[in-house]
């Protein structure tokens, strides 16, 4: 089931991000949101990206989509998709690249639908605009897609505000898979979904993904879900990747103290209620070094053993 990392290494990755650095230059606050980050995603691979809130995950996703807006600036690095330099693409190339080659479910999905068009019109529009289908055929396909994400096709006539948060999120997922892109970026796609619907939709995406062989960049804070679905994953902290390996290896043997804190901070579903602390007060990581390979395919940023002791102590209290 798990696709080993080496099987991807043998051919050209679909997406290759190298030494990416992105800065937001503000009047009051300048942030290096992404700091010298590299990773690649192979064909048919699901790659998970987890990490602290505000560590730069959405910024990476937006960089790949070339959607960064003004104060943001790619200070260094390269992004290549199928061998093409994404950062050098013209507006014309980008039009095709977005939606057809790469589709994204934004973290703001719930808020990203057009409020004055019905769900049906918006989903159908993708087919009429990008695939050249007739209006009627597009609507038929739109209905099919909504069923895929468990929305009653009768809701094609609803406006976004008439749907629940999770329904809007699902409508956007449907739109993203509509054109069967070769890379699907999901930025926290299921925050508003109950676990039953979440599990079924992710299973559908996984089925589609296996059938069509597309790749997925999957951003989520739900570590269990990430480990279940991803082949490989990376954990970020403060704009840096601190650990990357096969998802299952990170689950069984998290090495970086931040990864360990992430893995150990979800409350259990059985047993007594025990108090948990996230990262203990005052534990912060600074000047995170480059990754080093500690086991085959398992890369970790070297860290200060004292910080690690602090984390473990905090978790055991």
């Amino acid at each position: 089931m798990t696709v080993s990392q080496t099987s991807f290494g043998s051919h050209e990755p679909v997406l290759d991000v190298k030494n990416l650095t992105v800065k937001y230059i503000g009047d009051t606050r300048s942030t290096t949101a992404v700091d010298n980050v590299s990773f690649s995603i192979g064909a048919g691979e699901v790659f998970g990206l987890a990490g602290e809130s505000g560590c730069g995950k959405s910024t990476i996703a937006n960089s790949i989509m070339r959607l960064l807006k003004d104060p943001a600036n790619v200070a260094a690095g390269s992004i290549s998709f199928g061998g093409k330099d994404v950062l050098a693409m013209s507006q014309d190339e980008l039009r095709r690249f977005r939606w057809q080659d790469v589709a994204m479910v934004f973290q703001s999905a719930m808020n990203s639908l057009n409020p004055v068009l019905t769900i049906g019109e918006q989903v159908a529009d993708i087919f009429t605009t990008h695939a050249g289908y007739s209006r009627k055929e597009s609507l038929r396909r739109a209905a099919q897609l909504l069923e895929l994400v468990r929305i009653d096709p009768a809701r094609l006539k609803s406006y976004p505000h008439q749907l629940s948060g999770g329904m809007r999120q699902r409508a956007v997922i449907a739109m993203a898979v509509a054109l069967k892109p070769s890379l699907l970026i999901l930025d926290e796609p299921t925050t508003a979904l109950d676990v039953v619907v979440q599990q079924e939709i992710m299973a559908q995406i996984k089925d589609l993904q296996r059938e069509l062989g597309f790749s997925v960049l999957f951003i989520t804070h739900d570590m269990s879900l990430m480990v279940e679905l991803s082949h490989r994953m990376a954990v970020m902290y403060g704009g840096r990747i601190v650990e990357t390996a096969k998802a299952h290896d990170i689950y069984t043997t998290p090495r970086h103290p931040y990864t360990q804190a992430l893995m150990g901070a979800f409350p259990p579903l059985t047993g007594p209620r025990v108090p948990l602390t996230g990262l203990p007060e005052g534990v912060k990581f600074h000047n995170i070094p480059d990754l080093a390979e500690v086991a085959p395919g398992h890369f970790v940023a070297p860290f200060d053993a004292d910080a690690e002791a602090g984390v473990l102590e905090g978790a055991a209290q």
Partner: protein
Amino acid sequence: MSHAVHSPARPSVSTQTPALEVHGLGKTFHIGGLFSSQAVRALHRVDLTIGRGEIVALVGESGSGKSTLARCVARLEKPSEGAILLDGIDVLKRDRFQASRTFRSQLQMVFQDPFGSLNAAHRIEHFLRRSLTIHGKGGTGQGSEAQTRRRLEELMTTVGLQADMLDSYPHELSGGQRQRVAIARALAVEPQVILADEPTSMLDVSVRIGVLNLMRKLRDEQGISMLYITHDLASARYLADRTAVMFAGEIVEEGESLDLLANPAHPYTQLLVSAVPDPARAGSYDPVHRARLRQAVMASTACAFEDDPHQRCSSEEPVRHQVGDPRNGHWVRCHLYRPGAGAGGHALATEPLPEPQPAA
């Protein structure tokens, strides 16, 4: 710190007026075009009580009416029927047309969508200052500016944000940072009741635990009451005294959180608990088991309490069966009862598509 399991009896022993009571709340939306008569019954006869200093989690299917319930209670949506009592006072009667300032100082809501709920034109500081004003602190006249400034900074640190972000605009914040601003905005008012609609869904687990601990502290130290809407069952269990489960506009089960999640009695609750992601499970869910539960949710022909002489079953009335020890206040709606027609919008029904919906 005492983190012992809260005594299940805690909420019910109090003879005080509950912080919030909802009686027979109903809400029907009309959808489709101008001449269409399609309706969605988002809420139907919902009863819910939150005691003082109590946290109640509301979990349930996407589209089952959780946000609608919170929005009705927050007076952002007009219920079709029912009563809402805040501190014993019927607010629909007191403030007939809109939420009064008193109301807003008593009750605050954290919205589900952090991307849609912060006006893009203002800096973060503006939102928090406004909340302080509702609370009667900060801003105008007597209260010193230095004090207000300190309070603003304190609010930011409480939710794990740096004070220099007060000068930022919402679009400059990540999803989880916005979510924390939304929480800080509600806290600034120091209300008695907070309705939090998935307030931590975009936070990494480490920060999330911090926010949950904060809410717990507010409950224990300041007696704040909270409705905590979430899809994260583990966090409901961690934080909430009681948990209520919603399906198709109605509450189908409720009880002390640990007991409810350990002994889920309604097939929908069982379905939900069985679907919590678990990397240790390896592989996907058991489709046969899933289909059986699904069937039990949508068209049950049997109820676990049928043979109990003390508990009457009914397919028409949503009678409540007591589950286990009465001290846990754990009840489940009779399984024989089926969601009414027009309770539209639930995902389970969309699965094998029963019969086509009547055209509008």
